[in-house]
């Protein structure tokens, strides 16, 4: 099929970017979206032009590297998948496809579709851990955890840190991302011990690096490729109130 791509090209954070058009004539519906971009880049290299820069790695939806706005949606129009899992069979012949980077102040554009997501790491460094040194743990079965809690902790822990929640949010809020980690640990006895310090530190860092607040629109949940639930944010708020 034939597609017209409108891709955001930006040399670096300091220069202004703009959309550039690329006509694609031989797109197979069996291609993955990133493979379609690979084929564009192959062509650009053969023409000695600068290929489109984008982050990607595992290409199986788990590393969280890839992420771009496609036709107005983070990770594209299909819900609950990452960009690398998006197949070209979801596009129509003759369609114009708009491709942009995440747009949020704490995620400055590095080049083209690549943004700097280190703000996420900074929040995790502030408190997203349990303080236990290697070798000091007791036998794994010495603390029992109800299956229900453990399963729920897992459902929060599957966040891949891609940033789609922030990109989707009109406030550029990172509440879904932060609340997923807070919830995972809040639900486990191992995590309860530092619960107060953790929620204080992570929320303070989240504000410091420039993410906005949550106004309960729910676009983060709608666009999250791992379907992390909004109820995590409620739990984060509860943990936060308890901490003061």
């Amino acid at each position, binding site marked *: 099929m034939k597609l017209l791509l409108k891709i955001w090209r930006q040399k670096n954070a300091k220069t202004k970017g703009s959309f550039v058009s690329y006509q694609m004539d031989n797109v197979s519906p069996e291609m993955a979206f990133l493979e379609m971009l690979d084929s564009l880049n192959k062509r650009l290299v053969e023409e000695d032009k600068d290929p489109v820069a984008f982050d990607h790695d595992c290409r199986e939806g788990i590393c969280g590297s890839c992420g771009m706005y496609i036709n107005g949606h983070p990770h594209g129009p299909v819900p609950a998948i990452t960009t690398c899992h998006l197949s070209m069979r979801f596009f129509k012949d003759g369609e114009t496809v708009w491709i942009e980077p995440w747009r949020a102040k704490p995620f400055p554009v590095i080049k083209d579709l690549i943004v700097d997501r*280190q703000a996420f790491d900074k929040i995790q460094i502030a408190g997203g851990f349990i303080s236990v040194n290697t070798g000091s743990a007791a036998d*794994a079965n010495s603390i029992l955890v109800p299956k229900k809690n*453990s399963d729920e902790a897992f459902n929060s822990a599957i966040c891949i840190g891609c940033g789609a929640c922030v990109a989707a949010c009109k406030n550029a809020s990172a509440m879904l991302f932060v609340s997923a980690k807070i919830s995972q640990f809040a639900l486990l006895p191992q995590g309860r011990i530092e619960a107060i310090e953790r929620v204080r530190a992570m929320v303070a860092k989240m504000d410091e690096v420039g993410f906005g607040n949550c106004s309960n629109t729910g676009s983060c949940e709608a666009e999250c490729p791992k379907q992390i639930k909004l109820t995590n944010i409620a739990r984060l708020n509860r943990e936060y109130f308890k901490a003061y």
Partner: protein
Amino acid sequence: MGKLNSKIPDGPLAQKWTKYKASAKLVNPANKKKLEIIVIGTGLSGAGASSALGELGYSVKTFCYQDSPRRAHSVAAQGGINAAKNYQSDGDSVYRLFYDMIKGGDFRAREGNVYRAAEVSNEVIDHYTALGVPFARDYGGTLDTRSFGGVQVSRTFYSSGQTGQQCLLGAYSSLNRQIKKGNVTMFPRREMLDLVLIDGKARGIIARNLLTGEIERHAAHAVVLATGGYGTIYYLSTLAVNSNASAAWKAHKKGAFFANPSFVQIHPTCVPQLNEFQSKLTLMSESLRNDGRVWVPKTKGDTRPANDIPEEERDYYLERRYPAFGNLVPRDVASRAAKERCDAGFGIGETGLAVNLDFRDAIKKQGKKSIENKYGNLFEMYKTITGIDSYEEPMRIYPAGHYTMGGLWVDYELMTTIPGLYSIGESNFSDHGANRLGASSLMQASGDGYFILPNTINNYLADEIRVPKISTDRPEFEATEKEVRESLQKLMSIKGKQNAASFHKRLGKIMWDNCGMVRNEEGLKKALVLINELKDEFWKDLNIPGAYSELNMELEKAGRVADYFELTELLVTDALNRKESCGAHFREEYQTPDGEALRNDEEFTYVAAWEYTGEGKPHILHKEELKFEDVEMKIRSYK
């Protein structure tokens, strides 16, 4: 010969590690702060080592090529992590885990190392649980386990089909704690381009900042490579597309021997290739073989939908050939059996390169809910990629390149043949012999990183406490940086036509066709010729737009592919040298009448450690004889 000293401690197998720890030299806490350690890679082994070394008080500098350490490819491991806990009381023990690994590796791994990996496995599970890794649990609150290929006990701990992700995020969290404390400095988006030696010791690296293109010098008292495997030599593999062997290869060229490069695991259960543009093959966890039955039609070229083929017309070939282990035979056996059926014309789908993995009977017996609980995310992922609902019809699967048992040669202390250079996790060769059993890569990587290296590196650093902080102004750094700049310039100045990925794809095809699941002398010799022809073309017709002093992803790829041209040559050489079949290395010339691998213990009970001798010169082979004192070498049978 004689150059290799594995430094296995004397004494009974079960006491070697305890004895080693009791006698190894230590570094006092005040001195640890002054000692710097570089760790390359942030998967389970790299993040684990960085955390544990930071906790001990060393000054650690950790590097990864991704934008965040949380994205290292350990994240993609699915099925689980083994430990000899014997929580199920089904006869498991450290010894049995050790024995399963030795046998699974087809008696080509070192007893002492393997036993130790089994020994620390229990501590690994305790540690991850304490870090808040949500492993699956039973209703009473205890940890649940499941079975994996090649064993008859249930010792695999798991978090749905995302165990690697959960363990890695646990390791990432412990790394973050050390970053916060200032014990670890993190350098993301850096690629190690060379190793710096001073007086024969590893003293630092030259790295490229992938965002700015800047070439950086970093010094340390010791360097640890935790850089993973080289499964992407096949281009299409289950690995992340940016996974590469460059750091290990550069270290090899500086003097670290490369061991058993031809031992590459082809994973039996992957989504088959769907089109020619494909950049990646997705793994479907081996745990699926707990409940899924593998079959092909009994009639050649049967094109009926799977559900229309009656029971008596299905060939459950694994259950037929291997009644004792059935669908849970080890990976190498399962992969070859699938290839055998497809080559014989019984494969399914348009390409005929696929077999069925069928959950019909398990769903009938246990209910859909139970299957969904165990593998929900895998079924979803399969549906996303193929559009097929596996609750209703079988998955189609085919083998794909996955894990490399081979890697840098290391001794018992995980040190390479370069003093002060360590290699941990998949990047070393030590624990899996000629074939790795499922769920033991997370186990080994975590064990190496958290529990083994932090206990062995002191023994080296204890003698380094008088060495002051190493300056990057030293001539050795100057010289290595110059070499790196020249090699980057060389790649940039080819100015041909084709991009790096096109070469990689063609190289991968050569390797897959001639040095994949099945190898023979003729094919291997042909591969050497083809690799060299393609390599010449690469150095004439590669094109990289832009400059090396800026973000340039084409340059990153090109550098990795350039190294693969050299590594593949060594890999094929090693496969030619090993005139036997063992584990994943299957030479057609050496097989039993019923098509099983035929070892030659007389001549090949050794680790092949290859020494680099210079550009265009042949490698020198060093043999480390393997001694089996605690197990009897047997024909590996899963029948």
